[in-house]
């Protein structure tokens, strides 16, 4: 029989995923592995993992990776890429990591047009620490530190990182995708590939923001969290290409 599908070589074959059931982190890391294989870059890739659930797979990634302090992945990636420009360097960060504690590093790296790729997982909440409010938390959405839900007067509004970075001149490519449907999974895959290719071509800063679910901390089962993502998250965070200088 012909084998038409196999687990990406980017992840050890003998380890079970550390993510919660229904978590889209596992979809995205699979896509990244597949794209690296397809592009023949697995032996040239360096992943910079943020702190949070975005680092849960470090134990069983089969290629090079560095864990950055919380929020500093873009600075760490800057150092790696500038010191060794031939590497394909990408950061893998959650919304607390990229948009809250690491906002300065994120915006500054984008503003320098660093030739790196950011894979930004926007699930609207702090996953690993147990569902605290993130800069991306929707208005009204409950969080363990916003028991009445996010209130604009008190917490401000959800932050749109693609649009914020789109105010800068340097970024080359900014796209927001999701993994809520098979079509969107394929689109995400394409966007990741494009962002990596941009880096190999020396084009500068690319980011793919992926709107995902966190069933565990949203307090919803897998199916209901998909509904919430479709109805609420994607209304606040419309998908599409925000900038493509290619």
């Amino acid at each position, binding site marked *: 029989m012909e084998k038409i599908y196999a687990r990406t*070589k980017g992840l*050890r074959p003998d380890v079970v995923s550390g993510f919660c059931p229904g978590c889209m982190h596992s979809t995205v890391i699979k896509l990244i592995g597949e794209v690296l294989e397809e592009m023949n870059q*697995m*032996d*040239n*890739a*360096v992943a*910079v993992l943020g702190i949070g659930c975005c680092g849960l797979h*470090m*134990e*069983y*990634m*089969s*290629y*090079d*990776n*560095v*864990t*950055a*302090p919380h929020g*500093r992945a873009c*600075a*760490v*990636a*800057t*150092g*790696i*890429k*500038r*010191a*060794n420009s031939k*590497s*394909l360097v990408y950061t893998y960060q959650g919304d607390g990591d990229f948009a809250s504690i690491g906002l*300065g*590093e994120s915006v*500054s790296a984008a503003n320098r047009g660093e030739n790196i790729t950011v894979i930004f997982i926007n699930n609207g909440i702090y996953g690993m620490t147990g569902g605290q409010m993130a800069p991306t938390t929707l208005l009204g959405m409950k969080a363990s530190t916003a028991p009445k839900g996010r209130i604009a007067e008190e917490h401000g509004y959800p932050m749109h990182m693609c649009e914020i970075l789109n105010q800068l001149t340097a970024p080359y490519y900014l796209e927001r995708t999701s993994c809520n449907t098979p079509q969107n999974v394929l689109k995400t895959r394409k966007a990741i590939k494009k962002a990596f290719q941009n880096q190999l071509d020396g084009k500068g800063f690319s980011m793919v923001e992926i709107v995902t679910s966190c069933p565990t901390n949203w307090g919803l089962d897998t199916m209901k969290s998909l509904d919430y993502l479709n109805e609420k998250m994607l209304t606040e965070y419309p998908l599409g290409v925000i900038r493509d200088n290619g």
Partner: protein
Amino acid sequence: MERVFMKGCEAIAEAAVRAGCRFFAGYPITPQNEIPEYFSRRLPEVGGVFIQGESEVASINMVYGAASTGTRSMTSSSSPGISLKSEGISYCAAARIPMVYANVSRGGPGVGSIQPAQMDYLQATKASGNGGFKMMVFAPATVQEAVDMTFAAFDYADRDRNPVLILCDGVIGTMMEPVVMPEMKGDAEIAAIKDGKKSWAAIGHELDYAKRGWIQPGNWSTAVMQQGNEEAAAMYDNWQKNDVQVEQYKVEDAELVMVAYGISARIAKTVVDKYRADGKKVGLIRPITVNPFPYEAIENLNYGQVKTILDVEMSIPAQMLQDVSLAVKGRCPIETCLCSGGNIMKKEQVMDAVAKLI
């Protein structure tokens, strides 16, 4: 070898370049701005990379990244900036990433004062970040020493896969002195040093889980974490056995022994000479590495002969005093001669302090 007249900060940067440092990231703060400024001119000449980071936090993390590729890398700052870097320094120590940094320290807590002081001793030697890690800490007393220590620091960092700190005060950083620069390492030697780190560096590896470069500043397995901590502790013990550097100046017959490091030691030394000219038995122990601290040199003094130890520091409260006390073990009184806040230790103050004790 040619002698050149150089400012401390610039001499440190040039020594680093000669040692093969090819990456520097830093953020402006007085009194060390000449370090990043010098690197910004110099590194492009040798194919290196300089980045002005958006903050100290970003800068140390850029260095963490660059050093993770096996590139000799450096950052520098002054006291509050060092505090901001401490998480990143701790990450480098945890992940066993070699890098070098300099602290041209300030006169107190908070923003402190920009004038020379030795107020960061305990931070430098005991807890430069969370988690109980330690570093070799060199304390230059002359610009020449700052040069030689910076040059050697990269070798120690690589040997141990650990950060190394050059702990300066504003006098060393801003003073101009004649120095002899070490010879520039050639491109082949620098490439060989980098090659030696290939097995662990984050530079991409052939696809094989066991061979991947995994820069891992901690571990979820308590057993692995403890093992890492034990290995680090064994390394710290080895430093104490093998790497202590200390200058003992006229201590053989001394009845009063001063202990001082960095610029304070230089002042104390002139005081020793003054009193020796009058036949007074005064000596000096100067820690050159403040970590590992030269406990043994102080411990092995003949306390039948030594009547008093005088701890001389530009720090109030005294900080090195804690280490001195550990070594003296109550066998003679320890007095202090202190100033702080950016006031440079005056020879007269030390003369008076000694006069009261002999």
